[in-house]
């Protein structure tokens, strides 16, 4: 399942001990550059289609400080627009979710209405009403001149809404490549449904969370994982796969959940997945699909500043679940992944601590990414592969990021 050769990365070639400079996590200039060169350029996974099940349902999100509204049209198609009124730049939809079928104080039902001056837009982004347009603009402005800015948007890889701020982003399939090949059956056989959502804002750099999701050496932090996985057969055989554009996968094993007192074997699974299996897809620049037997967790990140990140956590099961099956998946999910679960709290403490030592203005430090274990589970190839892509897009070496930008070869 390995998509590309993963033994070489651009920033560590020739180094005895691959490392990165901590300023990639703490420098404000680098962060701003990341927003421009990465977050505004690539495809990003956002909400799940089950969050907008009906025509005219909407969700609002933010990417690289740009407010975005995702709307299911009356034709059933999901579209994304900048959530910015083209009149005086006000935010149009202010709620996290809702239905356009509900009229607003300034506007009619079935429209997105800017409350400021009551400009109204339909679910296709077309401007449908400008109050006193002819009196104010005469013939100089027409409705069709001021449509909302539509963004590239696709529903894929388990029914998630993917979008890009880059109008020239190309098809999503070219960006994800073969990264989902190993999870295709689990994600595509049955429609999925979200049962869990919560978010955390953590004073740390977003890449540190992705690093945590990209290496398993940190299982030493989790008693749950040591008991149920690390000492079990197959753990050290789990293999990383690396794919173009910085994505990586982690192969499965059979987790012995009942090896942790109080936990139980997970009787439910996903289509095509062995019972108690565990596989992951880490997506550049900041999302992870993680299936552990009966539940899928999706982490998505919204970088806020060099030392602040919002992480959203979703848990999903199958749409066809019975009430009993759904309750079982939720219990399994919460054991380690809920806000009161065993593992998530520990993971968040980990990057919180890193955030203290790598705040803007702290001394540059060498951060080791140098474990080589034949691309198996405690190898740090996942991080090295990520930073090779980071280097390519940023034109900077992660090991020497403050040097003059360098021209990097194309992938």
């Amino acid at each position, binding site marked *: 399942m390995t998509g590309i050769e993963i033994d070489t990365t651009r920033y560590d070639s020739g180094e005895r001990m691959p490392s990165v400079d901590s300023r990639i996590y703490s420098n404000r200039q680098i962060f701003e550059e990341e927003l421009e060169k990465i977050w505004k350029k690539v495809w990003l996974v956002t*909400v*799940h289609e*089950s*969050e907008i099940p009906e025509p005219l349902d909407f*969700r609002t999100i933010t990417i690289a400080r740009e407010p975005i509204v995702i709307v299911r049209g009356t034709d059933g198609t999901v579209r994304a627009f900048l959530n910015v009124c083209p009149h005086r730049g006000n935010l149009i939809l202010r*709620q*996290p*979710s809702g239905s356009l079928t509900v009229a607003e104080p300034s506007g009619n039902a079935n429209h997105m209405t800017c409350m400021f001056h009551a400009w109204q837009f339909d679910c296709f982004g077309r401007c449908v009403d400008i109050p006193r347009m002819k009196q104010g603009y005469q013939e100089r402005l027409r409705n069709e001149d001021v449509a909302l800015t539509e963004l590239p948007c696709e529903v894929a890889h388990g029914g998630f809404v993917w979008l890009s701020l880059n109008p020239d982003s190309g098809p999503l399939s070219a960006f994800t490549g073969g990264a989902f090949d190993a999870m295709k059956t689990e994600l595509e056989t049955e429609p999925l449904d*979200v*049962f*869990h*959502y*919560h*978010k*955390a*804002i*953590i*004073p740390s750099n977003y890449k540190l969370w992705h690093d945590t999701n990209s290496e398993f050496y940190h299982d030493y*932090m*989790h*008693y*749950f994982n040591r008991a149920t996985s690390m000492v079990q057969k197959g753990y050290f055989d789990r293999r990383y796969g690396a794919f173009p554009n910085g994505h990586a996968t982690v192969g499965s094993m059979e987790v012995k959940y009942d090896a*942790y*007192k*109080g936990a139980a074997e997970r009787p439910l699974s996903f289509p095509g997945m062995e019972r108690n299996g565990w596989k992951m897809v880490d997506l550049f620049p900041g999302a992870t699909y993680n299936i552990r037997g009966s539940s899928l967790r999706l982490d998505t990140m919204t970088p806020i500043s060099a030392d602040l990140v919002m992480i959203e956590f*979703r848990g999903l099961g199958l749409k066809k679940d019975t009430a009993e099956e759904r*309750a079982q998946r*939720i*219990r399994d999910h*919460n054991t380690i992944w*809920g*806000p*009161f*679960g*065993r593992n*998530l*709290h*520990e993971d*968040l*403490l980990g990057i*919180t601590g890193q*955030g*203290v030592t790598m705040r803007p203005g702290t001394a540059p430090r060498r951060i080791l990414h140098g474990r080589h274990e034949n691309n198996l589970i405690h190898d740090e190839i996942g991080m090295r592969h990520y930073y090779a892509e980071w280097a390519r897009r940023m034109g900077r070496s992660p090991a020497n990021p403050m040097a003059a930008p360098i021209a990097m070869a194309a992938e």
Partner: protein
Amino acid sequence: MSITTTDEIETTRTAIRETIYRACLLLDDGRFADWLDLCAPDFRYQIKAFSPEIRKEMTWYEQDVSGLRTMIEMLPKHNTDHGRLMRHATVYTIDIDRDGGNAVATTAFSCYRTAFDGINSHLDAGESQLFVIGRYHDRLRLGADGPRFVERTVVLDTRRLDKGSHYPV
């Protein structure tokens, strides 16, 4: 056990109110085993919240007595935040069944965390911050030993919990 007179009702309400407040103090002090002594053997504990993002009521935590005891027993094996959680609670309503066997109570609470580890303990230790707010929806069984919790559903209004917690709220 029929509770009919005004005095009986008020005495029972006082006992329920004190049981709820005593539970808060025991949780504040981390005396989880003593807290569970206030619970019936068939006690169930849940933490729930409604997410407008996914338009669903969510269950974030669910345990029976055995599960809670095990969870508490396993805590020392886990890395955790060592801040102290302290509750401020007000019992709003108590409704006693006609037959006097059970009661339900609604309590508003806020839970503060006083940092020990914090983010950087040198800076944060000693600082109190609001962790979560919500309501306790309790069902209690009334017996000779006094009221015992049969069910507690913590309904959180707070939905952004940042680093979260290993402890019941």
